[in-house]
């Protein structure tokens, strides 16, 4: 049995930041990730991040990751287990991890689940054909694995992920990109859209993919104009020769462990669908089970990092490793930064969604 103050599941930006804060405050931390390298989604983000300059905006995502990983290695209170999966929750304090080909039981005082999110699929005839993949998968292939699985890309979805991965496909030497969006407006930031327009990408709003075909691999796609209800407008179909189709239809939280534990969930479309109920301190409906990052609602690495820090400080306070004054001042600072990241026309829906989840959590805390 391995005993720690804090078990953190997932070493993406949320888990890394949580581990650092807690470790630096003197908690013994076990950080577990199923991948061979820490960083979660951060290392494929090769673009410069938005946000506040004070918090690394203007720095490329993978550099932020490199710095975090270096700091983690320097902190003696943090144990990092890679290639290890937390596969079962026995109860709120005991978890089973496959580590070094054997099952280890972890006895922990508190837990932060930072397991991230999964890409949503999109179903159309031909969607299972090799060459159709998630936009994040394409990003992993070109930026991490350094192979480009084709030359002519059809990107489906114009959120920031769709726009950014299109740009990165061109940076990886891709020949051309067509980007379609069913809504009549581009979903992501205008500046990202402008970037890819300058280099030849055709962005078509009010348009969707009807089917994809090819012999063993994507060779062409049928596109069509769609109406306000996303129904195909008859007679508007046309064919484009493409060899990769990437789907950027959003992400939803990866909550298996939280389900096993019996956390409460609520439906919240702006954050990706079903999300775990949690309060402003990042605690779920279960005592001592905290969450941070995309698993608490799919947002961004910048918010994931702040939530990780917040969860870590809540745990630190609950374990009586810092004073109430210290905790309150840190919590207020982080909350302000999160509010700044969730402001403006792109952030407000997420801010309201979070507020409504916190409101639901108020009722649960009475039951605890």
């Amino acid at each position, binding site marked *: 049995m391995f005993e720690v103050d804090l078990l953190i599941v997932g070493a993406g930006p949320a888990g890394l930041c949580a581990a650092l804060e807690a470790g630096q405050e003197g908690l013994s931390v076990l950080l577990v990730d199923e991948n061979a390298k820490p960083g979660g989604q951060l290392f494929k983000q090769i673009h410069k991040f938005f946000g506040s300059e004070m918090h690394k905006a203007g720095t490329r995502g993978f550099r932020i990751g490199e710095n975090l990983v270096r700091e983690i290695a320097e902190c003696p209170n943090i144990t990092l287990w890679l290639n290890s999966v937390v596969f079962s929750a026995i109860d709120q304090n005991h978890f089973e991890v496959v580590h070094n080909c054997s099952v280890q039981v972890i006895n922990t005082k508190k837990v932060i689940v930072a397991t991230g999110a999964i890409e949503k699929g999109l179903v159309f005839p031909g969607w299972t054909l090799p060459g159709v993949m998630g936009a994040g998968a394409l990003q992993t292939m070109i930026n991490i694995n350094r192979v*480009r699985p084709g030359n002519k890309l059809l990107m489906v979805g114009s959120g920031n992920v769709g726009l950014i991965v299109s740009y990165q496909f061109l940076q990886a030497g891709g020949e051309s990109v067509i980007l379609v969006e069913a809504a009549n407006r581009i979903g992501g930031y205008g500046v990202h859209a402008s970037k890819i327009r300058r280099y030849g990408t055709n962005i078509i709003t009010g348009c969707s993919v009807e089917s994809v075909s090819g012999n063993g691999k994507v060779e062409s796609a049928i596109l069509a104009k769609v109406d306000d209800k996303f129904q195909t407008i008859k007679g508007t179909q046309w064919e484009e020769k493409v060899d990769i189709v990437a789907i950027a239809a959003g992400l939803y939280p990866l909550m298996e462990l939280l389900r096993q534990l019996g956390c409460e969930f609520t439906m919240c479309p702006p954050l990706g669908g079903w999300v775990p109920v949690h309060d402003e301190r990042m605690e779920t409906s279960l005592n001592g089970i905290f969450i941070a990052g995309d698993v608490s609602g799919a947002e961004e690495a910048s918010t994931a990092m702040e939530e990780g820090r917040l969860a870590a400080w809540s745990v630190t306070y609950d374990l009586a490793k810092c004073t109430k004054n210290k905790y309150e001042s840190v919590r207020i600072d982080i909350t302000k930064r999160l509010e700044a990241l969730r402001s403006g026309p792109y952030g407000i829906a997420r801010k309201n969604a979070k507020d409504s989840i916190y409101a639901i959590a108020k009722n649960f805390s009475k039951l605890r």
Partner: protein
Amino acid sequence: MRVIAHPILGNINQDNEVTVYVDGKEMRGIEGEPIAAMLAANKIYTHRLTKKRHEPRGIFCAIGRCTDCVMIVDGIPNVRTCVTPLKEGMVIETQHGVGHWGGEKSV
């Protein structure tokens, strides 16, 4: 196609080349890269065929979540090739349906 040079990430290190066998054919890859990366670099996109309709499947999530990319590796079926590192001499086979232990030859 390998992305050898890159404006942000620089050049890749191709020093540690290994030889592997894909459905009996000899192929080159880079040690430690995911099996799926070696396959894409060699323009192989079908990893398995589905059980009933024999439809091809390839990479979908590239992070070990969807199991679309599983193949028979050194005789072990259902290996997620997008997260399994490549090693010298690996024997990689297209998986038919749920796959067989010992690889296709053993059937």
